[in-house]
């Protein structure tokens, strides 16, 4: 024990080889629990999903069973509902990203300015992020978008326009609006933090050189925000690929499959149709999609951990 205490006081410095091994012995029991349970949490369900995706497996019909080969995949890939769900997933991710990053950037610039009561206004603006998804979905569904009693219907009628049946006529768009409302504060919060880390001297220098608000935005602020924006895009993408509660509460994926995304399709297949094999194959596709994004995200985090 006594000899290790001297090595630990200079972490990061290159310790003699013999001492390092001694140190590893000590830290192992501290780190192991986290690593082991995370490893199990990651690998066991994933392997099971993979395994099920090659099996005939129906929860209601025990007579169905055995190795299915690629049957679940070929069935899934030739099933139009997968492609509808995939298209809906990407459509939702894309538009929520456009709305949240676009508006989020503008709002971040706005809330970076000095004005009266700014900190309170900022608290109000980030509030939707802390509202549980089922509550926000219900607020929008019942109080705002309801075709008879909703506030939007009231506004439309006051203007002499027909009330819009949001979830009937534009189910996916309605879900996108709700999800974008929830994630806008996230983009705002991150981008605002990034803007505030911008060197004020640099801004001052640009202003001295006669940069107007627009050139300031496009040549100073936006380039500085590049990294933060890409982080926002990646993190949101990972979460948006599995949007579930908002659809569950508002449209149940309908009408038809109009607002079914990949996450909801898997839920339908597995827990409503009890087709474990088919749902697992879709699960594998969802994992692959998310991993494509995750690789880039991990790379950009890795750059920052180096210290």
């Amino acid at each position: 024990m006594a000899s290790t205490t001297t090595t630990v006081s200079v972490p990061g410095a290159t310790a003699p080889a013999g001492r390092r091994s001694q140190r590893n012995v000590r830290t192992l029991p501290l780190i192991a629990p986290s690593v082991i349970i995370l490893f199990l949490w990651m690998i066991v369900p994933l392997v099971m999903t993979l395994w099920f995706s090659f099996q005939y497996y129906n929860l209601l019909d025990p007579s169905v069973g055995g190795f299915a080969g690629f049957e679940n995949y070929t069935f899934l890939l030739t099933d139009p509902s997968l492609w509808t769900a995939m298209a809906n997933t990407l459509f939702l991710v894309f538009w929520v990203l456009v709305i949240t990053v676009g508006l989020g950037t503008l709002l971040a610039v706005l809330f970076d300015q000095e004005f009266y009561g700014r900190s309170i206004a900022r608290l109000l603006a980030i509030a939707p992020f802390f509202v549980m998804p089922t509550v926000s979905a219900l607020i929008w569904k019942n109080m705002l978008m309801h075709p008879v009693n909703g506030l939007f219907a009231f506004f439309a009628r006051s203007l002499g326009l027909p009330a819009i049946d949001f979830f009937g006529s534009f189910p996916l768009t309605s879900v996108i609006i709700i999800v974008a409302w929830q994630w806008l504060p996230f983009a705002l919060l991150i981008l605002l933090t990034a803007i505030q880390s911008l060197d004020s001297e640099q801004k001052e220098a640009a202003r001295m050189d006669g940069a107007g608000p627009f050139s300031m935005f496009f040549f100073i602020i936006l380039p500085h925000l590049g990294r933060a924006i890409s982080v926002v895009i990646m993190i949101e993408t990972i979460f948006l690929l599995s949007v579930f509660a908002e659809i569950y509460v508002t449209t149940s994926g309908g009408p038809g499959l109009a607002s079914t995304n990949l996450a909801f399709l898997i839920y339908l297949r597995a827990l409503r149709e009890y087709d474990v094999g088919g749902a697992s194959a879709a699960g594998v596709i969802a994992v692959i999609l998310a991993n494509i994004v995750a690789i880039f995200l991990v790379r950009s985090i890795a750059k920052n951990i180096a210290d």
Partner: protein
Amino acid sequence: MHPKTREKLILTLVGWLAAGLIFFPIFWMILTSFKPEVEAIATPPRLFFTPTLENYVTVRERADYIHFAMNSIIISVGATLLATLIAVPAAYAMAFFPGKRTKDLLLWMLSTKMMPAVGVLIPIYLLFRDTGAIDTRWGLIVVYTLMNLPIVVWMLYTFFKEVPKDILEAGRMDGAKPKQEVWMLLLPLSLPGIASTALLSIILCWNEAFWSLNLTTSQAAPLTTFIASFSAPEGLFWAKLSAASTIAIAPILVFGWMSQRQLVRGLTFGAVK
């Protein structure tokens, strides 16, 4: 008027307008929760009315609401405590005795967070069914612990790294054993960091709605599941639903506001500072 002042006034107007629009749905829900049920669905919508607390009284009197709220509290706090308990030793080891692989290990932990929940829904559901964990509090506590563990380890790691090493070293000189060092020095010194880590973990558990909707029905259902059950009977209990929702989001809203700075750190894994 001085142009600088006018600019500031216009900014104030635009800023508050933007904030007001974003906050409006929440404001409307809170307002509705104070309306008598009949006024809640009245058209045209009433902005002025005699406020009432009857909805809150009804909600509080319904035993099941307390049951669901208790579930939310027990599950969020339980999972947060468990995750912190497992994470503190790991974060301590990685922050103070970094090895060659520490960085890779940290990145690997974060990468487990990027697995989409739907990808593993089926095995988890089946494992839960076979072990009798469906609709139990401990089942959700386990899932939430695992779900948040990478973020908790990561955040604690960054907070521990900010603790001046000299202080710990001085303690060691005075003969503090590793356990004492952690309990008497490290934990008190990094208490604010631990608190905001725990707060973020509670927020994430409280609002989680994928696992809670799929793995609980009634016994262990937290508020997310309970409120989702109102999606069917439309328009009947808007005022009561609003009151129930307001109570459900209020504590988390306050926690979120309190920890917004640390939140950025936790949610972006430090990629944005």
